[in-house]
């Protein structure tokens, strides 16, 4: 999806303005489908929480609020650096953009490391996806989110390399912008997951 260099093999080039607005529209539509994908899990969450409020309340204490909070801060901060990166690219500052994307990548990796410790602690306490409906939801929601973090990191890595190579300018930076949009979605979903799973009651 981050491929904004829409170029026809048979000699047609899209008007840059059309290409820019098309890519942005395409990414927004794609983000809509991502939210619907998570929507199924959010619906399951709503149904089972209404059905078993005690289970959710009793079991959520097993989750590590501090680690969750740290990860929330990390992701929000990474969204800030990504937004700054997009803004820097629009002003043509390639080096600054590259550094900001790199910081964003490091934040994403940091998020993964924290999550790794969280999951390990759960397994250590013999808590698995089949332990209960609550932990099924916990593992599936955070797991699917983690998958999106990895996809986001892959996109960011490509953007980082292309920025270093000088592929983007103040005039042409569509991939940076739509890649940034994707990263914000990753952040946004986590902002919902954190209170829903860690801060019950």
């Amino acid at each position, binding site marked *: *999806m981050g*491929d904004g260099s*829409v170029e*026809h*093999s*048979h*000699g*047609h*080039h*899209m*008007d840059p303005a*059309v290409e820019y*607005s*098309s890519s942005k*529209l*395409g990414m927004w*539509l*794609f983000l*809509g*489908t*991502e939210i*619907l*994908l*998570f*929507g*199924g*899990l959010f*619906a*399951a969450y709503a*149904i*089972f929480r209404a*059905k*078993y409020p005690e*289970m959710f309340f009793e079991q959520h204490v097993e989750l590590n609020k501090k680690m969750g909070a740290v990860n929330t801060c990390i992701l929000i901060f990474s969204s800030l650096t990504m937004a700054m990166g997009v803004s820097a690219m629009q002003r043509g500052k390639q080096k600054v953009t590259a550094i900001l994307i790199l910081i964003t990548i490091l934040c994403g990796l940091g998020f993964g490391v924290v999550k790794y410790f969280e999951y390990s602690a759960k397994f250590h306490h013999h808590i*698995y*996806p*089949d332990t*209960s*409906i609550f932990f*099924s939801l916990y*593992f*599936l929601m955070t797991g*699917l989110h983690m998958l999106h973090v990895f996809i986001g990191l892959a996109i960011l890595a490509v953007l980082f390399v292309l920025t270093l190579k000088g592929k983007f300018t103040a005039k042409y930076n569509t991939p940076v912008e739509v890649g940034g949009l994707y990263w914000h979605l990753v952040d946004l979903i986590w902002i919902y997951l954190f209170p829903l799973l860690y801060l019950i009651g």
Partner: protein
Amino acid sequence: MANHTIAHNVYVPFLEKKGILSWILTTDHKRIGILYLISISFFFLVAGVFALLLRYELLTPASDFVQPHTYNVLFTLHGSIMVFFFIVPGLAASFGNFLIPLMIGAPDVAFPKLNLGSYWIYLLGTVIVLIALAKPADTGWTFYTPYSATTDTDVVLITLGVFVLGFSSILTGLNFIVTIHKMRAPGMTWHRLPLFIWASYATAVLQLLATPVVGITLLLLITERTLGVGFFDPAKGGDPVLFQNFFWFYSHPAVYIMIIPAMGVISEIIPVFARKPIFGYKAIAYSSLGIAFISFLVWAHHMFTSGISDIAATIFSFLTFLVAIPTAIKVFNWTATLYKGSIHLHSAMLYALAFVFLFTIGGLTGLFLGALAADIHLHDTYFVVAHMHYVMIGGTVMGFFGALHFWYPKWFGRMFNETVAKIAWFFIFIGFNVTFFPQFFLGVQGMPRRYATYPAEFESLMSLSTYGSWILGAGIIIMTVNLIAGLINGEKAPQNPYGSLSLEWQVPSPPPLENFEEIPHVTDWSYGYGKKK
């Protein structure tokens, strides 16, 4: 828009380049359309063979041709291949790809590389499902829990394949929406768009909104089988009806993903061969969006007997009746277009007329099933089977065959034998009705679907239905042979054999690589037939 560095007036048809790489690496929407057309036609024929086999088993009351388990596998493969490999991608991916840029006056879709990627993802999905055939599932195409969570056949792989196909569907829909928004030629305003474009747009919206939900549903089913998650398992506090809710939240809109493009095809064919402007253009255009909208509010009408509350059932029944309104608007407008038209019974037109007739039967019998009291009796009987085949074959497949015959000259630059095409149509029309009309009676008399055996009292209607399937199969063979023969030794097609006003007919047959030498300036809609010049 176009960057013309090549000299003008050199006509290079898009089919000119040869070699396997020119196909598997193509980003040309017309070639990608052909790739889809070949793939979906292949799966249509394969799933059709499964249908013939299971109808053959039903020729006699006893289970004497295959074992009941094999029968279950046969209807599962027939259903899931027809639905997920043929009819859902179907017209949207094949004709949508070929026609959308041509009809709106664009050189290609908005994201040509993504378009090719979508096709590869489709292929990946088919490969996964083919591997799954080693131990084929016996759950039916709906994969209902709890059975699908416990059967020892390979449910995980086939659902994973369907999940992958969903991605292809989402990306294609996304591409088309952006294309229709951003790539229209100057002067191609929304209300000048051909109705096929409106239909494709509504379809793409459904693909985007509904497919992710079935994606997550199938993932949950996979985790149910692999990780021991219990969302659909009552023993673990889950709810099997939740699976049905999730599944139909996608799969009911998916019914319209299947039918709306066919409605778009009919809206293109009828005015050309009635030589009259389409009646009620805006009503047809917006009714596509109306169907798309209502389709999200009716899913639970598949679950009236699954133990949902009376209030929910009543509301969903009422909402189901609402779908009939935009659908009927279309049927009335097509009929009004025919009224006092100068009708030419070209084979494409015959399929279009068959569509209107058969789809009306399919649609009206849907209302029987949407009515609560009647549905208690008819649920899971052959009445449902007949209803959905009247909509899916009588509707979508007739639309697909109509589109094949209508745009064939444009796409391939050749003509097929019109007389043979009419004979094939006749076999298909008769065969279809002989196969499926008796099933309405079987259903009313209480014959349940999905059984390899049946009581002797149903034998005459059951065997009649099987005989019909042979006539239908023969018709499809004649049609396929005729169309393939046309590719090999058909006459060269003129640019515009039917005198259509739509943009795709204003370029040579087959269209040049870049579609339009100059991006056209559109000054009128494409339905101004029968005006004095």
